[in-house]
């Protein structure tokens, strides 16, 4: 009875089909993932350098950040950061006399995912930087490069091949973590799927459809990642 009752028209792009809504949700997911991932990279780069070259206090604070974020479920972090983060921001801006600021769900989502990703990228990048042979950096110093130039010209590009596998993994985690923003009512793919399923009662259909969309996202990402890795690994002999 179930099989012949699949109503494919529910997936039509135009309303009353829900296909368009799902795609819009997917776009939202991708936006958050992209934003959060980029923010995570920025935080991660800072965190990695802080952990490696910072003073003892900075290093410990970074350690606390990465440990806590990696030990507490994303779901809990999202709730905490989503409410507390915006609450705090509001209070700060109120104290400064700006009145309440409006934080869009998108911005909040990006922020939350970014903070979570930042902790993981810190570790990935730190490990990758450590994997750069000391001699490479010493050679740069011996040729009179300034610390900043060493980072730009040697450390960062040399660590890239070491970091890429970890970073690509993080990207895949990131795309899926966007689903957790459903719990704060952000209309990314998972939440709109749930709405569509709840409204139409076609649970199987919509969950499968969303699954396919996520899978596509993963597969396409993997393809792109492979191209990037191949480029970054040029200098390294094949194993």
């Amino acid at each position: 009875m179930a099989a012949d009752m699949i109503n494919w028209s529910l997936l039509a792009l135009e309303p009353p089909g829900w296909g368009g809504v799902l795609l819009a949700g997917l776009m939202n997911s991708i936006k958050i993932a992209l934003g959060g991932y980029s923010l995570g990279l920025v935080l991660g780069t800072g965190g990695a350098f802080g952990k490696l070259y910072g003073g003892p206090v900075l290093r410990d604070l970074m350690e606390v950040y990465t440990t806590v974020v990696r030990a507490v479920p994303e779901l809990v972090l999202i709730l905490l950061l989503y409410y507390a983060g915006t609450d705090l921001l509001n209070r700060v801006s109120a104290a400064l006399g700006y009145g309440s600021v409006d934080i869009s769900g998108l911005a909040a989502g990006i922020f939350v995912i970014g903070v979570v990703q930042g902790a993981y990228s810190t570790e990935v990048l730190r490990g990758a930087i450590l994997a750069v042979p000391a001699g490479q950096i010493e050679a740069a110093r011996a040729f009179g490069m300034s610390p900043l130039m060493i980072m730009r010209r040697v450390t960062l590009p040399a660590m890239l091949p070491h970091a890429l596998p970890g970073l690509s993994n993080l990207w895949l985690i990131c795309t899926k973590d966007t689903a957790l923003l459903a719990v704060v009512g952000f209309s990314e793919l998972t939440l709109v799927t749930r709405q569509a399923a709840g409204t139409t009662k076609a649970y199987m259909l919509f969950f499968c459809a969303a699954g396919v969309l996520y899978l596509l996202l993963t597969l396409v990402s993997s393809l792109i990642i492979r191209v990037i890795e191949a480029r970054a690994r040029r200098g390294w002999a094949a194993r």
Partner: protein
Amino acid sequence: MTERAEAIAVRDLYKRFGALEVLKGISLTAREGDVIAIIGGSGSGKSTFLRCINMLEVPSRGSVAIRGEEIALRSDRLGGLTPSDRRQVQRLRARLGMVFQSFNLWQHMTIIQNVIEAPVHVLGVPKAEAIERGEALLRRVGLFDKRDVYPAFLSGGQQQRAAIARALAIQPHAMLFDEPTSALDPELVGEVLGVIGDLAQEQRTMILVTHEMKFARNVASHIVFLAHGVIEEQGPPEQIFGDPKSELLKKFISSSH
């Protein structure tokens, strides 16, 4: 012997790592065109001495002057020394061509990119000019056809020759070699020593740490024997190898055959 200008002058250099005093007052002057070979047992501080010259290790006491310009040092909180002007150090380093035992080519750059990196990004040479000069140097060390290859795909000997080209590319006042052949398989040593020998013939200022006694004898104008952190003996090769005075040197020479 005419009085040539001082290329590198080290005065009364001390270096300690924690409790271990590695260098205990070393003075050495290399004039333009000198080829100085530093020999000595393992752990005698040869590498440390060489690295102090371009401040990869900061001395605990003493001074280093490059072409008459003394590197400014000041005391730091821990009682040691530290360069007072980072830019000065960077500027002086940019004219000292260092060749490491383990090559240390930048793995993410092709050979030609390695060679032009410092000229372009440190010395500000226009890229086209740097490439032209870089290619000439690669041709000279016999690596022109490997210009667009990444270091990982070269043999050790080829990598070391590329590293020498890289050091030459900055038109250095002096070249510093730290055991440039000891990470190489015996059959690859020759090709690198050949290149260095050619440089010596051109009267380039060079300080080289080496274990290859025969090579040191043929190439160096002056030999310095380090032992227990001091210069135990020094002099022209004939004297050092032919008529060693110190017991330690005698023992060292007889054991390194």
